[in-house]
């Protein structure tokens, strides 16, 4: 595989931390401003993919620390726990429970919807990283590009191998 562009590799060092911070920012402010777990998760996944393309998929996995599948499972677990707090207080599954404190100038609120959104965030990061990393890591299906043994995945309609 040919080496990725040097510009991409340099930019990556600056962009990835920025993307991660913005993604967390989107996640946390999501309840009141544009953002949320889904958008935040996509942004974080973009950071992972950037590393995978600029460096290697292995490097991207190292950045994630946890296996993407574990992230998905963890996210679902967090969302489930967020949903089960409602029943603990005698309400239906996924009923929101809020804690609020108004200390002078500082207004604080936290609730199970935020926890739930964190679960969404984790699932999205895990799932999108899985899509990208699994496909990226797979060895090319047709190493011989001249088409000696082309795999006919969707070229049944007579896609002729080109000589590019």
């Amino acid at each position, binding site marked *: 595989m040919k080496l990725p562009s040097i510009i991409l590799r340099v930019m990556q060092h600056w962009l990835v931390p920025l993307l991660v911070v913005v993604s967390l920012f989107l996640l946390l402010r999501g309840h009141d*401003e544009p953002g949320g777990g889904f958008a935040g998760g996509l942004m974080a996944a973009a950071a992972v993919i950037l590393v995978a393309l600029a460096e290697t998929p292995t490097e991207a996995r190292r950045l994630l620390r946890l296996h993407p599948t574990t992230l998905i499972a963890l996210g679902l677990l967090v969302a489930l726990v967020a949903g089960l707090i409602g029943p603990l207080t005698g309400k239906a599954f996924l009923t929101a429970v809020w804690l609020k404190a108004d200390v002078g100038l500082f207004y604080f609120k936290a609730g199970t*919807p935020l926890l739930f959104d964190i679960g969404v965030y984790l699932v999205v990061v895990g799932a999108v990283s899985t899509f990208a990393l699994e496909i990226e890591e797979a060895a090319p299906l047709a190493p011989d590009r001249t*088409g000696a043994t082309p795999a006919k995945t969707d070229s049944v309609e007579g896609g*002729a191998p080109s000589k590019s």
Partner: protein
Amino acid sequence: MLLELTLAIPVLLAVVAPLAWRRLGAWWPRVASLGALTVFVFLLLMLPDAILGHPQTVTREWMPQLGVTFALRADSFGIFMALIISGIGWGIMSYAGGYLGKDERTGSITGWLLLFMAAMIGVSVADNILMLFVSWEMTSFTSFMLIGTNHRDEESRVGAKQALLVTAIGGLALLGGLVILGRQAGTWNLSEMPAMHDHPFALGAFVLICLGAFTKSAQFPFSFWLPGAMRAPTPVSAYLHSATMVKAGVFLLARMHHVLGELPAWTPTLVITAAATMILVILAVPRATDLKALLAYSTIGALAIMVGLIGIGTDKSMTAMVVFLLAHACYKGPLFLVAGSIDHAVHSRDIRRLGGLAQKMPVTIVTGVIAGLSMVGIPPMLGFIAKEYALGAGMNYAPWVAGLITVLAMAFVLVAANVILIPAFGKKRELASHAHEAPWSMRVPMVVISSLGLILGVSPGLLERYIVGPAVTSLEVTPVHLSLWHGWNLPLLLSTAAVFWGGLAFWKRTALGAFCPALPSGPRIFDAIWNGTVGFGRNVTRILQNGSLTMYLGTIVVVACVLLLSVWIIEAAPIDVDVVRKVPIIDVIIAAVIAVSAVVTALARRRLPAIAALGAMGMGVTLFFLASQAPDLALTQFLVEILSVVILVIGFRHLPDFRITKKRYQIGRVAIAVLVGFTMSVMTLVALSTDYAAPISAWHGDNALTKGHGHNVVNVILVDFRGFDTFGEIIVLGIAALGVGVLVGSLQKLRKHNPEMLSGNTKEPVQ
């Protein structure tokens, strides 16, 4: 309390069975049989109340919205049935201990048997008809597990599958029938159900309930599953497929007699079905050579007699049915156990290879003779009384019914002689040399149950007063007087003739076997239907899933469009042109950008330009969201577009280079694109032109801050108001990711181990 325990004891024992078997070893079957005996005693204790007319009841809420109540009512007929189930159950548990020996499956088999016992008692004492249905299905399921015990054997699996499919289809019909009855009667409790025969829906309910009962009790044309079920271990066959489960259909029909018995269709339907089944049995018996197959056919015949008697529905016939039910359990159970003992001793059930076992297995053979005499109907056995009353009731209805029962009784003589006389006194074969008597745990149940047939036969007064009489009364029919002997009359003559001709048939059995035509085999018909269904499915799959992603997408999209458009045309849904005029100018500009990108995408001949143009189109949509003041949607759309393009490009790296070369492929693609575009435009316009109900968006906007504590309405909807949907969506997302992982992983493995599968032009989908 006692009533709940009769269900709780077997369920609890069933749950601990696998563990207990490992801990207790040979003691476990004894414990299990003791459990069954306890249930038997509890039921006996409840009998006096039931006879006096105030049966014990239990009522607990289960699913009150659906009318499902955990309602039990131990009336005399229910207790009568449950006594048979627990009594035979006691014998079977003990017998299974000896029969299976150190077989490692003993734990699970006894567990399923106990669970079956609980389900069957549930059928007997259920008052709520939906509760009855749940128990009924549970018996089908446990039967499936027990037939398939030997799941490494192909034929066992086939037998189990047939039994499950046939009884489950019947079960579905039964559910329909019961729901009709319950809704129309306004009560779900059997005891409160009025006579429904003049209700307009009664006939429909009756047909459905008949389907349930006939499949369960192996009546024509559903008889074939019962011989197939004989692959189960013999204790299972003895318990489920002769003494108890197959009688559930008879039991249900008896229960329904007071509700639907006056229906004009009741008698002809049941009597004709029973007659067809009897003819089937009469033709099948002379050719059968397997001990268990012979017994299975005679079981089907006995069930047919009971169905016919319920169909006739007179006082005499209902009494005869109850006596027959008891007599059959007392002789057919032991006969199966005798067959099992012979199989256990010499490892064969083929009557052509058996003979001369009388000296080696005296107790088994004597038991078999007692049970066989009851089956043949020799006085003073219980079987004699049952047959006399059945013949009498049949005669009162129509002479041909009595005639048919007589011929069937002849076939029973043949079965009894084949099953007992040939193995016991036939020419001694080499197999007999190493035969041995069964252990005590197997002998005791056989002896006890078969001698019941003798004891009850000589004490008809006891039978009438405490067992049969109350049971018949609780079916809302007046019992007739029972006696062993009632003079020289026509039934006795017919009965004697049956024994005589049966003996003659046994003597000339080879000639008779050759004379009887081979029947079209039920299992073969079932297989034909089964294979046809599966084959049809396979062909449809081959056409629809031919391996080309382009075809998949094209099919899905075109079918969806055609369906949507046809609805639009049929419903003549109006389009209000004014909605188009109200569009602001900025939207028109963005729409133009989107349209240009769409045209470029559709015309692209290579992947990369296509995906780039698609991305541009997505960006147009993002712009549109921004213009509509939906920053949240725009942000998400923007990210999704970028990531899709990136992931698609990564994916393309793996595919061979691709270019559309032929004009007609291009035209096809453009045509599909136009069709989709047109459909979606129409749908959007139709949706905008119609006010079905007040939109709910206002509610969300008003309540986001007060109830959801958030300023971002979209997010509040996602994580709070519609949190459950989101939860489902992230589960789907996770599953999709796992799917990608598995697909890529298996592709890698495939390439490593058999690369030729990927290179070839494989039309078959890769399994």
